[in-house]
C-alpha cells in the first residue's frame, strides 16, 4: 500500500463515495493500522503520565508505573488466562486486568496492616507483591505446554502491539482516558504531595485522599495498558525525565507534557518495531533498548538534581 492509496481511502471515507478496488486497503487502515496507532498513543500517554504522577507521589524520580505491583499482577493474570484457554481471548484479558487491580489492593492492604502510610512502606509492599506474582508467573510457565502456551506467554510478557485489534481499542479507550483526565485534574496537588506527608498536611491539605485517588487512577491506566499490550517497560520512567528537562518539574506542566511526548514516542517506536526487520520486534524489547541508554545519557548530564 502506498501513501496515494491511503489518501484515496481517507478521501472516499470523508466524501462518502465508495472507492472501488480499495476495500482491502480500507480494511487494513481502519481495522488494523489506525487502531494500532491509537492504542500505541493511548498506552504511551497512559504509562508516561502514570510514571510522572507516581514519581511525584513517592517523591522519587526513579519510580516507574510497576512500583505497586500492577504489571506483575496483570502479567500473572494473562499467563493464567493463556494456560487455561491456550489463547488470548476475553478470559485472558479479564484475568489480566483483574489481577492488575488485585495486586495493588494487596499492596495497599499490606501498607494498611503496617499502619504507617510512609512512602517506603508503599515501595516495599510493592516489591513484595511484585516478587510473589513473578514467582507465580514462573510457576505457570513451568507447567505450561512447551509447544504453544509457553511461547504465547513469553511473547505476551515481552510487550507487543502485534495482536492488537479494533476491539482492544474500544476496551481500553474509556479506562485509560478516564484515568488520564483524573490525574490531569489532580496535577497541581501532586506538587504538594511530593513535599512529603507532614509538609503537605501542614500546608492544609489531606495527603491521604489525594494519594489514594492518584493510585486508583494510575492502577486503572496501567492495568488497562498491560492488558492489551503486555509489559512495556522504561516508557513510564524515561518520558517524565525528558519532560522535566523540557517543561520543568512542576507537575502542572509535567503531566500534560508527559502525555504528549509519551504518545508520540510510543507511536514512533512502534513504527520502528514493525519496520526495522522482516519479523516484528516486540516493542517491550525496543523501548528498553532505546530507553535505557537514553536514560543513562540524561542521568549522566544531570548535575546533582532530579
Amino acid at each position: 500500500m502506498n501513501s496515494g492509496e491511503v489518501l484515496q481511502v481517507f478521501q472516499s471515507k470523508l466524501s462518502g463515495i465508495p472507492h472501488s478496488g480499495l476495500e482491502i486497503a480500507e480494511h487494513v487502515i481502519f481495522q488494523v493500522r489506525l487502531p494500532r496507532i491509537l492504542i500505541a498513543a493511548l498506552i504511551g500517554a497512559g504509562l508516561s503520565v502514570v510514571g510522572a504522577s507516581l514519581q511525584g507521589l513517592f517523591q522519587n524520580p526513579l519510580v516507574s508505573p510497576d512500583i505497586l505491583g500492577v504489571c506483575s499482577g496483570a502479567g500473572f493474570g494473562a499467563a493464567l488466562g493463556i494456560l487455561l484457554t491456550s489463547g488470548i481471548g476475553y478470559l485472558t484479558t479479564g484475568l489480566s486486568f483483574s489481577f492488575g487491580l488485585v495486586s495493588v489492593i494487596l499492596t495497599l492492604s499490606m501498607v494498611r496492616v503496617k499502619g504507617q502510610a510512609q512512602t517506603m512502606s508503599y515501595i516495599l509492599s510493592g516489591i513484595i507483591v511484585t516478587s510473589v506474582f513473578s514467582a507465580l508467573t514462573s510457576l505457570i510457565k513451568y507447567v505450561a505446554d512447551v509447544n504453544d502456551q509457553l511461547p504465547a506467554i513469553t511473547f505476551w510478557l515481552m510487550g507487543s502491539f502485534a495482536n492488537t485489534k479494533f476491539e482492544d481499542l474500544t476496551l481500553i479507550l474509556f479506562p485509560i482516558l478516564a484515568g488520564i483526565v483524573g490525574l490531569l485534574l489532580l496535577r497541581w496537588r501532586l506538587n504538594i504531595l511530593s513535599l512529603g506527608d507532614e509538609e503537605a498536611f501542614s500546608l492544609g491539605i489531606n495527603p491521604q485522599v489525594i494519594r489514594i485517588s492518584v493510585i486508583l487512577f494510575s492502577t486503572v491506566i496501567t492495568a488497562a495498558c498491560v492488558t492489551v499490550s503486555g509489559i512495556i517497560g522504561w516508557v513510564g520512567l524515561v518520558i517524565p525525565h525528558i519532560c522535566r528537562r523540557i517543561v520543568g518539574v512542576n507537575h502542572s506542566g509535567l503531566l500534560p507534557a508527559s502525555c504528549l511526548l509519551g504518545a508520540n514516542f510510543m507511536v514512533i517506536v512502534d513504527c520502528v518495531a514493525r519496520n526495522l526487520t522482516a519479523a516484528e520486534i516486540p516493542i517491550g524489547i525496543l523501548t528498553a533498548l532505546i530507553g535505557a541508554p537514553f536514560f543513562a545519557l540524561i542521568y549522566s548530564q544531570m548535575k546533582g538534581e532530579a
Partner: protein
Amino acid sequence: MLLQVENGSYSYTKENPVLQGINFSLQEGEILAVMGPNGIGKTTLLKCLMGILKWQSGHSLIDGQDSGMERKKIGYVPQAHRFSFSYSVRDMVVFGRAKYMSLLVSPGKEDYKIADAALEEVGIVHLRDKSVSRLSGGQLQLVLIARALAGQPCLLILDEPESHLDFSNQFTILQIIKRLAKEKGIACVMNTHYPDHAIRFADHILLLKGERYLVGRPRDVLSKENVREYFKMESSMERVFIDGREIDLFVLLDKI
C-alpha cells in the same frame, strides 16, 4: 488570646510521657521560644499545635476554636531541607495557597499575587525564578517563611528556623520573624537551641524537660537556677550597655 494550650499532654509510649499538662497562651504579635534539651519533645509540641499529632488529653485553641478546626490560620515553617524535585521559588511559595483552593483547581492570578507579596515581605523577590535546589540554606529558609506567609496565617510555627545558618543569616531570619510579628500581628512559636536568640527576640520562653516545664519572660526563665536544673549547666545573665543600648548577655560557664 490568640493561642491557648490547656492541659496538653502527649506520649509515644505509655511509660514515657513526652508532654504533660502543658498550659500557656500567646497574644497576637508575640513570639514564644520553645527550649529544652534534645529529644525532650519540642518538635512533638509543634506537631500537636499543628494537629499532625493529636493531643492525648487537653487541647489547643486558636481564637477560642479547637486548633484542629482552625488549621488554615496556622502557617508552618519546617527546617530548611532538600526537596526531591527542584521547583522554582515562586512555585514553592504559591504552594502555601493550597489550603484555600478546591481540590481540582490550580493557583490563579490572585494566588500568584499573594505569593509575590510574600516574597517581597521577606525580601527575596530577586530569587523568584530560581530553582530551590540552587539556594543557600538561609535563602531556602526565607522561601519557606514566604510560603507560610502566602497562607496568610495568624499563627506561625517555626521548627528551629535559624539552625544550620551562619550568625549573620541567623540574625536576618530572626529579625524578619520579629518584624512579621510586630507589623502583621502574627503570633510565632519557634523552637530554638540558642538562649541569646530567645532573650533577644522572644517575648516568652517555654522551657521543657520531662514532666516539668516553665513558661515566662526570657530573663526569668533562663535564670541560673533554672538553667542548672534543666540543662545541668552553670550560667550567668549579664546586662550590659553598648552604644546606649541595654542588652542582656547570656553566658554559659561550666558543665556541672
